[in-house]
């Protein structure tokens, strides 16, 4: 069969248009695995909800799995997702080192892996991690509390609720706290460091013991807002749950920026909160996937600068606080 030049040109144009549409469709039809280790706090619950919404808006399909703090189970979940030939794996691992074999498996299958909010330990395996600048955000939060303490005058007995000592976020937040209080030893004396292991039960018992040992604790920082209900319960039992400006108020700082933190800031019990910008972190994670699919190689660690919100600037900043969005939904629902 002889092909004329005109027929060839038309055919080539049709083929090109067809392949373009296939490419556009392929962009929209990405399948991304969302592998969480738990939904133990509002931060993770809101995180997965924002991811679902944003993925849907992009026309992506999401496959979800939760490992309940089991590293081995999560590795199996990664292998299952690789077998399903997903286009990307977003993972929140429990242990920074235990996830490395999973990264290697994803690398071998040429599937991009993005760590959400918790970076892996250093290795030669390649993946991208999105993380809040925990140390800096905590420093800013505690700095604000110290400035309040200086304004009010007097000496302060401080207590910190530390997270899981195997979690890099918990360590960075603890370090951010000590960076500031160690420079202000003249007015702040840290009398209790409570290892909560991100466990409400341990946080409750630890704080109760700390208040028993030091009934004059008046400066309290938690490494996560999800421990607020236990803190409220303990402080109420000790008759120390008072609003800012009331006698006996405990200077109280939080971290995360969840709906409970928003409510307590609004009610006057919480003085400052280091907010992780959850919306930005999801955008950064999905942006990293798009870059990786486009053949780019983003940095291994991308930082969310976060911000501090206080009772003074609550109205001005609350729209950036993810907990405020959740709080508004709860008020409607």
């Amino acid at each position, binding site marked *: 069969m002889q092909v004329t030049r005109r027929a060839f040109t038309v055919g080539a144009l049709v083929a090109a248009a067809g392949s373009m549409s296939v490419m556009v469709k392929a962009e929209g039809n990405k399948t991304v695995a969302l592998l969480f280790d738990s939904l133990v*706090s509002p931060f993770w619950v809101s995180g997965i909800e924002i991811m679902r919404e944003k993925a849907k808006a992009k026309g992506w399909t999401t496959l979800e799995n939760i490992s309940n703090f089991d590293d081995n189970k999560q590795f199996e979940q990664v292998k299952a997702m690789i077998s399903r030939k997903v286009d990307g794996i977003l993972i929140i691992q429990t242990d920074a080192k235990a996830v490395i074999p999973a990264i290697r498996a994803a690398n071998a299958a040429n599937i991009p892996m993005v760590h959400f909010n918790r970076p892996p330990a250093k290795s030669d395996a390649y993946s991208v991690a999105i993380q809040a600048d925990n140390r800096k955000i905590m420093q800013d939060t505690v700095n604000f509390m110290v400035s309040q303490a200086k304004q009010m005058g007097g000496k302060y007995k401080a207590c910190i609720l530390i997270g899981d000592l195997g979690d890099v976020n918990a360590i960075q937040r603890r370090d951010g706290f000590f960076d500031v209080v160690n420079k202000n030893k003249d007015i702040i004396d840290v009398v209790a460091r409570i290892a909560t292991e991100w466990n409400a*039960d341990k946080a409750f018992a630890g704080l109760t013991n700390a208040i028993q*040992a030091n009934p004059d604790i008046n400066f309290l920082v938690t490494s996560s807002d999800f421990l607020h209900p236990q803190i409220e319960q303990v402080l109420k039992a000790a008759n120390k749950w008072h609003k800012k400006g009331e006698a006996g108020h405990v200077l109280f700082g939080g971290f995360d920026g969840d709906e409970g933190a928003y409510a307590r800031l609004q009610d006057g019990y919480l003085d400052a909160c280091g907010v992780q910008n959850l919306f930005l972190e999801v955008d950064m994670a999905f942006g990293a996937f798009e870059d990786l699919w486009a053949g780019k190689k983003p940095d291994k660690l991308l930082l969310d600068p976060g911000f501090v919100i206080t009772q003074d600037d609550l109205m001005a900043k609350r729209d950036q606080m993810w907990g405020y969005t959740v709080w508004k939904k709860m008020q409607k629902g």
Partner: protein
Amino acid sequence: MNGRNTKLFVLRNTPVLLFLVLLAAFGLMSDRFLTIGNFVNIVIQAAHIGIIAIGMTFVLLIGGIDLSVGANMYVVASVLGLFLKDLPLPVSFPLATLLGLAFGAVNGWIVTRLRVAAFITTLSTLFVGRGIALYFSGNKMVGFTPQILALGRASYFGVPSAIWAFAAVFAAAYVTLSQTTFGRQLYAVGADPDAAGKAGIDVRRIVFSVYCIAGVCAAIGGLVSLSQVAVASSTFGLQKEFPVIAATVLGGTSLFGGRGGVLGTVFGAVLIQTVENGLVMTNADPYLYPLVISVIIFIAVFVDSSRTSILERLERRQIRVERA
């Protein structure tokens, strides 16, 4: 006291001696440790572990084990927080306790009727229970009504509600074990189930009952805990079986059945909480917590495993054959 008597004394009273050493050590490090207020605080925090450990004592006394107590707590908490929250407490709490009883009854039924080893049965129901609770809660935190939280902070006649619950469960368990036929039969089954069966004791009924008791105690312990911590997240009750079994063994109940009692269990629960309290009171390095707690639990379990044989050897009568 000669060397043999000293050894006997130390072996019989190892947990008490350990407790005294800890009291002295923490008391020297913190001037607020040895106070009435702190002791009350320790008992409040030991209450939920102690209540569950009392149930575990019944199970260990017959030579069984229940690894599912933490899962039972989580199921009860999830159902209470999600489905029973609108009911008044005098209705919702008994219903939640009945749920715990049902959980224990499933364990008992599998162990006695299907003749599956208790370890395997309760390990399975641990996973099934947590799975059910995770399904109900959607993996999210479950909150409770202000009435439940107020109950957790309440005191009656100057005694906190958690201590009342602990005391009531202890009294019921103590009377059951020491004053009833059921209690005597339970010890007999634990010491030698074959002999107990030959003596006319319905061994299956006793075994089934102790798993039901453990289920009820796990539910009550869960209710006490949730009224204190205010929420039940997916870690609620997680790995609770370890401190519970440790408290029971620390209190002198044998892992092999037939020996022990609930008075010792209360002591064991208080001892474990004393360690945790002392570490916080002395502002110890948080990295030390698991190390210190696990060393103490190891000592307790090691002493239990070696105590029986050493005691038998030391208490054996020496018969001297006179030469003609």
